[in-house]
Each structure stands twice: as structure tokens, then as C-alpha cells.
């Protein structure tokens, strides 16, 4: 499923249509959004450099990581950005997003060290990220610079819409993303969002702008207990290595396709597998003891079929409560049957039964005090 998203971004926009847009959404309970962003970034970069994609270049708008981080990330995936024919440009909104360094220099007695000089060909520092117009123009300028004129297109990757939303209003951020999507030279666009940093409507606005939404959720919900609870701790640790990866794709014909996978964060990187059954997940959490703590499939079915004495069957019949005494008619039948079989076996579909023998037939049922008087039985 993750691959289908990357393919959709690779294939880009149809003539006369908006570019496909992907929102990657996570929360603190399952903070893998950035891993997924890096995965999609490396995949799309490979496609672009191999000439397999609609877009001829990629503009990475980096708010939350330095440009050198992305250079190194791509280098480790075998993509050398510097020598890659200038197909990838990084717009640096990380190093000095608000122009503080310039203001300090103006105020005197401050010298900023020139750092990342080697990246100056690929990284361009933006010092005023509060104005979405300027940001939009910078992105489009970089993109056009990558591909030249004509019918070529470029892709855009924004590593943190949260940072953008901190500096500008939701409507201007939405405006920027919408304008990029509808720009006829933009092939595809994707961004990362931490859903718990915003009101629900902000996330909703961004989701409406996207043709694909991936959201990350924890595999296990820890109980509302205290952190010190060992079980909770192991659940939290589990949740930090694995999660659920949901994908929602809006098709052109209006249909929405929803898929889910499991995502694993390992030493070697991120991997996606199909969702395992709940039993397999819980296997890892069951303590290892010498007796079986779990039910077999047959036992589970039998348990599900047991009719509890006070359970409403909902079949309209008056509720018969078996109090352990058999009526005369029944007991006669019983004596005949009991002679041949001691144990009632179930020959039907395996329905379970509760067999209750009262200690003594002389025992009267509880008369005056009915402990269940207050219950609706």
C-alpha cells in the first residue's frame, strides 16, 4: 500500500487536473510520520533520477531538519544529490526561518559562521517563512529552475506543515498548498502533519486538500493506567516500534479506497507488512509460563456459544430461569435418559450448555429475599 502511494506520486497529474497530494498524519502515540516521509522522499527521488516519473525535479521544503540531513539521508539510499544533475533542490526554512541572524548582525557585534557552504548549490536559505506568498514564490522559482520551461513538471515535499501553521494562519497555509496543487507545472506534492498539534478542523482542511491521506496509529491502546504499570510500559515500547498504517485514496471517479498495513521501524529502516491477526500480535505480550493461558480455536467457539442463564436471547419468548429444580415432567424424562447416558453430549452445532444440579431437591428456592429483586431479569 505504501508502494501504491509512491507510484501515485510518481505518475503525477493528468492534463487539466490538480496534482495528487498526500498528507502523512501521525500523533505522539505513534510518531512514525517522519520515517514515512523520508521513505516516500527517497522513493520519489529514485524515480525522478531514474527518469521513471512524470516530474523532472523535486523541491524539498525543509522546516524541521537541516538540509544536510536530507543530503545525507538520500546519500545513504544511494542518491547523490550534489551530482544528480541538479534534479533535487532543498529550500532551507530551517537554519534561519525568521531572520534572527540577520537582525542580530544589524544590531551589531554578531558574526554568523558560514556553515553548510558546500550545500549552497543545493540549499537556499529562506529567512522569512511567515509570508506564505513569499514561500510560494520561492518554491515555484526553485521548481522552475530545476526543470526549465515547457511542459516539464516538478514535485514538492514539505517536511512540516506544523511549522508553517505556527507562523501563518490556516487559511494562508491552505491557500499555499492549494495553489501549488493547481499549478500546472507541479506534478505531485506531499507533506507531513502531526495531528495532535492542531485543532481537528486544521487537520480536516488539509485532508480535504489531499487526494491521499495516510495516518499512523498505535497498534495497541494502552489502558488508562499509570505509566509505571509494567504492562503499559511494554505496550508503549511496542507502539514505538510498530504501528498501523492506514491509507485513504480518493479516486478521480469519486470512490474512496481505504487500506491498512502494519508498519515496523527497524534498525535498517521502515518496512510495511499486511496486518497480522490479533492473536499473533498478542502472542508477543503473553508471559511465558508452563501452562497454556490462551484458548484454542475450538475452545473460543464453544465459549462463544454458551448461553448464559440470565442472558436475554431476544427471541421474544418469556425468559425462563432455570433454578436447578426440574418439574416432574422433566425429571421423569431425565430418569429415562440418564440411564443410558451420564453426560449430555451436544449433537447439534456445538452449542455449549450449563448443567446445574441442585444439592438437594428439598431445597426451597429463596423465598422472601430475592437478591436479584433489583435486577431486570
Amino acid at each position, binding site marked *: 500500500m505504501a508502494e501504491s502511494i509512491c507510484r501515485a506520486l510518481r505518475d503525477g497529474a493528468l492534463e487539466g487536473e490538480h496534482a495528487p497530494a498526500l498528507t502523512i498524519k501521525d500523533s505522539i502515540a505513534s510518531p512514525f510520520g*517522519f520515517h514515512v516521509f523520508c521513505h516516500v522522499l527517497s522513493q520519489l527521488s529514485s524515480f525522478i533520477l531514474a527518469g521513471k516519473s512524470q516530474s523532472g525535479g523535486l523541491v524539498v521544503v525543509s522546516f524541521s531538519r537541516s538540509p544536510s540531513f536530507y543530503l545525507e539521508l538520500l546519500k545513504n539510499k544511494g542518491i547523490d544529490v550534489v551530482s544528480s544533475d541538479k534534479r533535487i533542490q532543498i529550500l532551507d526554512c530551517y537554519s534561519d526561518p525568521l531572520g534572527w541572524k540577520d537582525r542580530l548582525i544589524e*544590531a551589531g557585534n554578531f558574526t554568523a559562521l558560514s556553515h553548510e557552504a558546500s550545500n549552497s548549490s543545493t540549499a537556499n536559505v529562506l529567512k522569512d517563512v511567515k509570508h506564505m506568498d513569499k514561500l510560494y514564490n520561492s518554491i515555484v522559482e526553485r521548481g522552475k529552475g530545476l526543470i526549465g520551461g515547457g511542459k516539464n513538471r516538478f514535485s514538492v515535499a514539505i517536511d512540516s506543515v506544523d511549522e508553517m501553521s505556527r507562523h501563518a494562519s490556516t487559511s494562508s497555509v491552505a491557500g499555499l498548498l492549494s495553489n501549488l496543487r493547481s499549478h500546472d507545472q507541479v506534478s505531485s506534492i506531499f507533506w507531513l502533519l502531526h495531528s495532535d498539534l492542531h485543532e481537528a478542523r486544521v487537520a480536516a482542511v488539509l485532508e480535504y486538500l489531499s487526494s491521499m491521506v495516510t495516518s499512523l496509529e498505535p497498534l495497541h491502546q494502552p489502558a488508562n493506567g499509570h505509566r509505571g504499570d509494567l504492562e503499559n510500559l511494554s505496550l508503549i515500547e511496542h507502539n514505538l516500534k510498530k504501528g498501523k498504517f492506514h491509507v485513504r485514496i480518493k479516486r478521480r471517479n469519486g470512490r474512496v479506497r481505504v487500506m491498512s498495513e502494519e508498519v515496523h521501524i527497524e534498525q535498517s529502516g521502515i518496512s510495511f507488512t499486511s496486518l497480522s491477526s490479533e492473536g499473533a500480535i498478542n502472542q508477543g505480550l503473553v508471559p511465558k509460563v508452563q501452562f497454556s493461558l490462551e484458548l484454542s480455536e475450538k475452545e473460543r467457539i464453544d465459549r462463544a456459544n454458551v448461553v448464559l442463564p440470565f442472558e436475554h436471547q431476544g427471541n421474544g419468548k418469556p425468559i425462563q430461569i432455570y433454578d436447578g429444580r426440574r418439574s416432574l415432567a422433566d425429571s421423569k424424562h431425565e430418569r429415562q435418559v440418564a440411564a443410558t447416558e451420564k453426560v449430555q453430549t451436544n449433537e447439534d452445532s456445538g452449542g455449549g450448555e450449563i448443567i446445574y444440579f441442585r444439592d438437594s431437591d428439598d431445597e426451597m428456592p429463596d423465598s422472601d429475599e430475592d437478591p436479584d429483586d433489583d435486577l431486570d431479569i
Partner: protein
Amino acid sequence: MNQRSSNLLDEALGLDQSIEPWPLRGRIVAIEDQVETSGSFVLHHILKRSLSPNSSNVSIFIAFSQPFSHYDRVLRKLGCNLVTQRDNNRFFFFDMLMLQCPGGDEGISPECGLIALYGKIYKTIVALPEVSSKNVTIIIDDLSLMEVAANGSSDYVLDFMHYCRTLTTEFDCSLIALNHEDIYSSADRPTFLLQMEYLADILIKAEPLATGLASDVHGQLTVLNKGMNYRQGSSRNKISNFHFKVKENVVECFYPGSQG
């Protein structure tokens, strides 16, 4: 005695092995505490370890909470002389107790406020000899008081933290910040707290015990060490939980049920 009892905390932070080069280089540590369980002892512990005679670490301490004399007293009991370290240019103390930023967004001038503080930290690091080989630790005590000094603008504080973060990438500094969880957790959406949690490579939470107050256990520490190495896109999340007891000259850390 000191080393033995704080071993669990050192282990969780990666400080139990050699501290040269400084294991927290380029990493951000966020400490969250509550009224019942103050997390300042974690700050003091990291400060003490960073000023260990075996290392060439430099610490820049940004104090919004207490004056120098307070930390001097506390660290003396832990066996560290801040005055000597300050004289040796290994410890820089920025007293921010009287900082009051001018109100209004556009009124933020570089002469005062957090922009100036950032400038001051930058200049201090750049002025250090052989800056590339020094391990600089920036410690902030604490973020909620910084927000007060910024007239309640958490955005301004987050901007400042972003710029401090650029220092971790530019100079490989470590950044340690203390914040109070219970101030923000009652809000509908504790955004400020969450922003720091997303930012942090190591998250340390000091909380009371689930069972309430106790005389021989002061609280529990949960250390989430993300161990992230985004360069390879890998991550080694490790979570540790243990109890602690703050004594006069030392903090004892031990697993639940194994007092001492």
C-alpha cells in the same frame, strides 16, 4: 556511592559508558516534571556529569528559575564546584531571572528578549577555542518560566527552541530543557508540551507513584530514549522506568521493589 546509585539514570541516558566524546552530542533532552515530583535533580545530574573532570565539556546554563547561588549550593553537595568551573570557562551562567520581553509581536527587538539570548549563546560558543572539538551542553531551567518572561507567547519560546535546535546541528551541542507537565496537561490540547515531546530525542518524565506518596520513594522516572539515527532512517526506541529518592548529596535510582 554517587556513581553507583545514579547508574540507572546514566544507563538510560547513555552516560554509563565513556563520556568522551559526550554521548548526548547533537541530541535534545526534554524533562517533564510535576509539582509533586520535581525534575530539577535530573538537570543537576546532567550538569554534574557534563562538568566531570574527565571531559572537556562546556556547559551553558540558562536560568529563569533560580540564581547562581542556588545551583552552586546544590552542585557543591553533589561534588562539583561551579565557581571554579566558571572561572575555567567551562561553565557559563546566564541569569535570566529579570528578563522581561517587550509586549507585542513587532516590538520584539534584537536588543532584548529571546533573540538577544540566542545571539549571546551563539557568540559564547563561537568564542570557545577549538569550537569544533568542544562538547557544548545548553541547559534551560525552565521553559514555563521562559514563557512567562515572553509574556505568555509560547510561539516565541518555540521559535527560540527552534533556533537552539539549529545550534545542535551547526555545532553538535546538546540541548537539555525542563518543563512542567501539569501546567499544560490540563489544557484541551497541550500543544506546547507536545511540541517539545516531538522535538526531543530523549524524553524524561518525573511522576509520582501510582500508589501515592511514600517516605522512601519520591517518585518514578520514565526515560524514553529514541536513539534515532535518521541518517540511516533507523530507530532504537528504548524505554526505562525506575523509582528514585532524592537525598541530600545524591539521588538514588532503583527498580521498583528493590529499595537501595
